[in-house]
């Protein structure tokens, strides 16, 4: 699988051929301008006039326990799923939506939208399960309850009273999250600069053992922010290409030819030194390109999921670190990077979908705990060497662990993109 799969994935208007190892072109830089337009266009299918049925039109929901109470019932009527609200309006303030699905097999979630933004949602609205609820604080205005799969999909809901405040706390939290993530990336890149300097120094001194240690120390800084690095289509192949992905006639540079020299041949040649100098130069370029970058929330979300793709496509197979076999070091770094992206989104995401947020948090804990079992202080990089025996005994278990995390994680981009 091409590494390009894991780059920060945004709609790619240029549709140019991608480099084998490279990233989606323009994902971070030029992609920002086009994303908004595409996202708006893509939502067109749901943006029709909200014409849903309401049980008692115009009747404001009663307030109890400090929140207006609205019941949302999904059921099958003459072969069609319908979504019915018992009250079509509520006074401004907290509003609780209690959702139940009687027998509509094709409907499994409900969202509250303001224009196209998701303000709150409930998943797993499955026939036979008990009703579940979510609460959102709403200002006066028009909203839509969205039941994908029912007819109609959108039902109008009106909130009376004072208008919504200009600030949107979810949006503010997302902004704080993406700003925080930018600082995290900067920090990782700064550390990477220092780490490759050390690697170069060790190589220049001709000390193979020191070079091996420095190599293992540098890799995690790159692996944690891999989706960002991969968004620079020329730089990533120069830094992180594996031999199998080198185009004929192209020079192989970056981490991995160095890895081959110091772990397989265990010799440092003039070429190794030239490679190390080139690596230092390219990491400096990476620093200049990442400095001051702004990210969108969905980029963090896709990056978090993309890092898990990396784990499954190249770490679990042992093809990433084919000579050093420190794949578990990269593996752990990918997971850490993924979790960081998620943590920066978490405050906002927990407002939109608390259950999903809790599920993902619990899964990260589970994965982290499992990876702790692979720590080995005596091994280079601090984790067990990923040899054939370990792969044979543990790869399946690790894959299933990662897949069970990726399934819920892959859902968050949609939510934060529209928040």
């Amino acid at each position, binding site marked *: 699988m091409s590494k390009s799969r894991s780059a920060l994935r945004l*709609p790619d208007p240029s549709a140019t051929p991608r480099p084998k190892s490279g990233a989606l072109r323009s994902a971070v830089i030029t992609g920002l301008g086009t994303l908004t337009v595409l996202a708006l266009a893509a939502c*067109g299918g749901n943006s029709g006039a909200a014409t849903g049925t309401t049980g008692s039109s115009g009747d404001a929901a009663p307030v109890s326990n400090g929140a207006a109470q609205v019941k949302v019932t999904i059921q099958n009527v003459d072969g069609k799923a319908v979504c019915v609200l018992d009250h079509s309006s509520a006074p401004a303030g907290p509003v609780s939506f209690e959702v139940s699905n009687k027998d509509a*097999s*094709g409907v*499994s979630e409900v969202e509250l939208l303001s224009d196209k933004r998701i303000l709150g949602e409930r998943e797993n609205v*499955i026939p036979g399960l008990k009703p579940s609820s979510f609460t959102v604080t709403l200002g006066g205005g028009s909203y839509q309850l969205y039941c994908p799969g029912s007819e109609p999909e959108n039902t109008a809901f009106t909130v009376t009273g004072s208008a919504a405040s200009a600030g949107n706390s979810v949006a503010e939290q997302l902004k704080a999250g993406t700003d925080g993530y930018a600082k995290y990336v900067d920090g990782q890149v700064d550390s990477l600069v220092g780490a490759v300097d050390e690697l170069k120094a060790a190589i220049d001194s001709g000390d193979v053992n020191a070079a091996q240690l420095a190599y293992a120390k540098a890799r995690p800084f790159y692996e944690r922010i891999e989706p960002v690095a991969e968004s620079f289509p020329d730089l990533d192949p120069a830094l992180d290409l594996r031999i199998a992905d080198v185009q004929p006639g192209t020079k192989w540079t970056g981490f991995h030819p160095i890895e081959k020299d110091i772990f397989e041949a265990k010799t440092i040649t003039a070429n190794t030194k030239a490679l190390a100098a080139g690596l230092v130069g390219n990491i400096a370029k990476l620093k200049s390109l990442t400095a001051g970058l702004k990210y969108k929330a969905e980029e963090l979300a896709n990056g978090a999921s993309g890092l898990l793709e990396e784990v499954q496509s190249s770490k679990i197979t042992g093809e990433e670190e084919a000579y050093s076999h420190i794949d578990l070091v990269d593996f752990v770094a990918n997971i850490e990077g993924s979790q960081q992206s998620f943590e920066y989104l978490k405050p906002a995401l927990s407002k939109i979908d608390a259950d999903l947020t809790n599920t993902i948090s619990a899964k990260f804990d589970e994965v982290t705990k499992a990876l702790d079992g692979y720590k080995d202080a005596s091994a280079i990089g601090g984790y067990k060497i990923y040899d054939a025996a370990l792969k044979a005994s543990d790869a399946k278990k690790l894959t299933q662990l990662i*897949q069970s995390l990726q399934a819920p994680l892959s859902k968050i981009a949609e939510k934060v*993109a529209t928040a």
Partner: protein
Amino acid sequence: MSSHESTETSDGVSRRRFFGAGATVSAAGALAVGAAGGALVANSLHAEPAPSEPISERRYAFYDAHQAGIATPPQDHLVFMSFDLTTQSATELQLVLAKWSAAMAQMCAGEPVGNVEPAREQAVPVDTGEAMGMGPQGLTLTLGFGPSLFDQRFGLAKFKPKLLKDLPAMAGESLDPAYVGGDLCIQACAYDPQVAYHAVRNLARMARTQVKTRWTVLGFGRASAGANQSTPRNLMGFKDGTRNITTPEDLQEHVWVEDSDQSWMDGGSYLVARKIHMLIETWDADYIADQHAVFGRNKTEGAPLTGKQEHDTPDFKATGTDGKPVIPADSHIALAAHENNGGTKILRRGYNFTDGIDSVGRLDAGLFFLSFQKDPQQFISLQSKLGASDRLNEYIRHVGSALFAVPRGLPEAGKYFGQEFFS
């Protein structure tokens, strides 16, 4: 019968909705009846014959007294998957069972389980989409609970039927742990392999956080016949299972559970799954007289060695000029015959499989044997006898094994499998 009538009516409605005006209520009704077995089969005698329709549009009712995929005439293709729960939470298990039940109904109706192409750019498709536009293809999905589901993890011990326990070790086994057991299983059968695979893949996908796949078998040719189906051949080239259960009376007597210690099993059945590796190269070098003696039938007609036609009743007492039984007493059909087993019958629903080349360079292929019975002992008794002395044993090894309790069918939308465990 009113609940069945209402099922048929709602089938007709949703068929029209999803497949246009061509589909008719009577067609759906007749098929639903055909799928259900038991009393419903008797009812089908009065139903209008189904108009000819493409097999892609064939559809079996999902909501019914029994789960489909048992008495249903075997479709051409199978995907079987066994799962283990990775969650320790009973609530998560409940969620999986409720989600699966709803999704199974959708897919058996030929519908996706959600958006294939979401409107929002950043949304991941809910349905993977590879079965779009292919029709229901006679898809049936049959869910089973393994004995391990009722261990201490989910507090379900009190719901465990006393007949549900791991199969005992039997002669002729060489089990590979990679093909044994499972907390849950799904048997997907359809006239198109992609539709069956799509269904299992999407069920696995929607529960990826709660379950992991344990083992899977793809069956590419049915190896059992239902009522009014011709007997297919296994990979040894023989017709086997000619005397399979086909009548409502036999289903009632041998297949459907009644008066279980667990009421949720009444109307259900026990599913035995055995992955049987055939030593194909060795068999292919065997001479025809020995092949005949192994099965007790001839190869072309499938007739018992005492008869001329496939369905001639075998005469196990007949002796040849040498004074020995014409059908050897250790032939496959002699050992398996209900006459020689106190009347014991099982419903066979097996499929042929191939998995490429095995670890020692042989063709990895054989029979994925599936049988349904009201008591696992029916299989255990037969297989103990076969395992001990069947001439066929020289050419086969049982490498996979599992037993599952298949709960009764769901009566209507809004119900899910295992609901009784969580009330």
